[in-house]
């Protein structure tokens, strides 16, 4: 198992490298570069730009060298912990991402917790009491949750909150904490603001997971080992939780790695609607402005997080399912 883990880890590093190349290539794909966008912006505000000025800018940012040189320079800087300066914001990329990364994690984790906390029990109930009235109701609500775009849900909730409760929903902090330094009060304020984005971002995933859990568990409940356990005299609840539910967990764990990037990319519109200070809108803006160091760093971070998530879910899977552990013991 140790050999396997080490090999997985090395493979993960290789994948991260490939992601860095790919993310750099993707950022380079659109025609033009940051200077083009910058000049267009200057021109639109009435400033006259000479070709020499543009050329100087390109040299200054190293945009005149070939793509692979740009990539190597970028990697060299990253290996020293320097992710470059944002072309648009003119500050180090890490300073921009810093807080936002943690806030994004907080929002994502609470969305995942919400999703799992709701989907697991409901999925189990729906499978055990298949075709009961409650099962039908959950199925109905689930499909609605799946079908409604989450930004629409965000808009509706904001409207309802404002119209009927006079509450200004949106953002992750109350105005008084917005510029404040981190303190226990600010943390508590954040925690109070998290449930709503978690609900909005988690609804579609919840509906999906309920269906997956229900289907998995229905398969498992028909297996002979359930009859064996029942014939032992175990109580039904304990039996279901110990045997079939554990077996039905595998797909949950194996999708853990994708959950994080899925929530971030899926949350861009929601984050814009709700005014959440997360990574999503930042990435969008960086891409539009062709701010390549910022965009590259974000894409790279997302890639690393995905690989890391997959790595963790692989290890978890081995821990949960002994069959996988033995298959991979070489």
């Amino acid at each position, binding site marked *: 198992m140790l050999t396997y883990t080490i090999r997985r880890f090395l493979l993960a590093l290789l994948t991260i490298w490939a992601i860095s190349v790919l993310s750099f290539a993707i950022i380079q794909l659109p025609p033009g570069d940051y200077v083009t966008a910058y000049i267009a912006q200057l021109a639109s505000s009435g400033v006259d730009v000479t070709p020499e000025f543009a050329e100087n800018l390109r040299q200054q940012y190293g945009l005149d060298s070939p793509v692979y040189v740009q990539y190597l320079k970028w990697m060299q800087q990253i290996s020293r912990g320097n992710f470059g300066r944002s072309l648009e914001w003119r500050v180090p990329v890490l300073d921009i991402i810093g807080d936002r990364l943690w806030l994004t994690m907080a929002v994502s984790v609470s969305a995942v917790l919400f999703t799992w906390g709701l989907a697991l029990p409901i999925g189990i109930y729906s499978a055990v009491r298949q075709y009961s009235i409650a099962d039908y109701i959950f199925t109905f609500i689930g499909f609605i949750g799946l079908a409604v775009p989450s930004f629409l849900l965000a808009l509706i909730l904001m409207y309802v909150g404002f119209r009927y409760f006079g509450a200004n929903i949106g953002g992750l902090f109350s105005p008084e904490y917005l510029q404040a330094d981190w303190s226990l009060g600010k943390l508590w304020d954040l925690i109070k603001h998290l449930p709503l984005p978690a609900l909005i971002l988690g609804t579609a995933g919840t509906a999906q997971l309920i269906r997956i859990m229900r289907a998995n568990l229905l398969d498992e409940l028909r297996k002979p080992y359930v009859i064996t356990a029942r*014939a032992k*005299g*175990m109580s039904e609840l304990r039996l279901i939780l110990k045997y079939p539910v554990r077996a039905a967990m595998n797909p949950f764990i194996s999708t853990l790695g994708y959950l994080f990037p899925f929530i971030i990319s899926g949350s861009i519109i929601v984050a814009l609607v709700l005014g959440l200070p997360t990574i999503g809108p930042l990435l969008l803006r960086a891409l539009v402005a062709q701010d390549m160091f910022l965009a590259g760093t974000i894409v790279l971070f997302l890639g690393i997080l995905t690989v890391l998530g997959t790595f963790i879910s692989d290890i978890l899977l081995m821990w*949960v399912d002994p*069959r996988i552990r*033995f298959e991979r013991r070489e």
Partner: protein
Amino acid sequence: MADQIARANGQPPMLTVEGLKTYFFTDEGTVRAVDGASFEVQAGKTVGIVGESGCGKSVTALSILRIVERPGRIVAGQILLRRPNAKAPVDLALLEAEGAEIRAIRGGEIALVFQEPMTSFSPHYTIGNQIVETIQLHQDVGKEEARNRTIELLRMVGIPNPERRIDEYPFELSGGLRQRMMIAMALSCNPKILIADEPTTALDVTTQAQILDLLRDIQQRTQMSVIIITHDMGVIAEMTDDVIVMYLGRVVESGPVDEIFHQPKHPYTQALLRSIPSIFAEPRTKLPTIAGSIPHPHNRPTGCPFHPRCAEAMPGICDRHEPRLRPISEAHFASCFLYHEPEAAPPS
């Protein structure tokens, strides 16, 4: 009937099933999986239940343990279990299916071994974990004690290296070993009755013989009652004291194994026995089969359920009247109009 056998043995039966009906209420209609089955199991004896697939053997076993799954339900009948230190037997059919009382009986007093040794253990836990759990469910012992007992049980059912095997996962074991583990788990709480539902069906012939030997050996040592459910007449002949022949959810014939084999009365039993391959048979002759196939469960024949396939069916009687299980001799019963007249009024 109960009285007669009791008199013959001088002791009330361990388990009495009387008029058991287990129906499945599906959208397509009601399936009468068990439709009025009656039989008895004597203490320390082995009873074989035999019949074709779909005759209700397994559902009978599940009914006794009260683990019939929805949409199935026991709709009528009694399942009387004699319990130690209790004057009157308890009727399992009346107990709450998920209640504490039946759960104490399940695995504690009546244990089940069934036919899928590959999948009847959960692959997520070690064998030891699953057997220890059974012991701790029914007996007030610590983990250490339960584990030692498990190792002892594994040794008893002939598993080499039990100290090591106890920590292995089911998928690391062969089918034969797994079935031994299954038997060990069933025996872990010293049940009074062991129900073995096709215990050897999925195993190769050599292993089958070993498992049957093991069951017989254990039965002699522990003096428990064994119910063997099978479609294999060879297993019946080798293992049982009494035989119950089931067809379409009903007992069509029952009696001591010698009488069933040497003087089968019901045409269905006779046909079943004819269809056993024999080493004395003429080479390259066809093995006799029973004409037709089991009727569709939603489309049961009227009268005697076997009459459409019966060579000796009497038109006007067998298709109109329902036969009942009647004595042929002291302990031998058959449900056939060849041996008794139909009752006066035919069912409308």
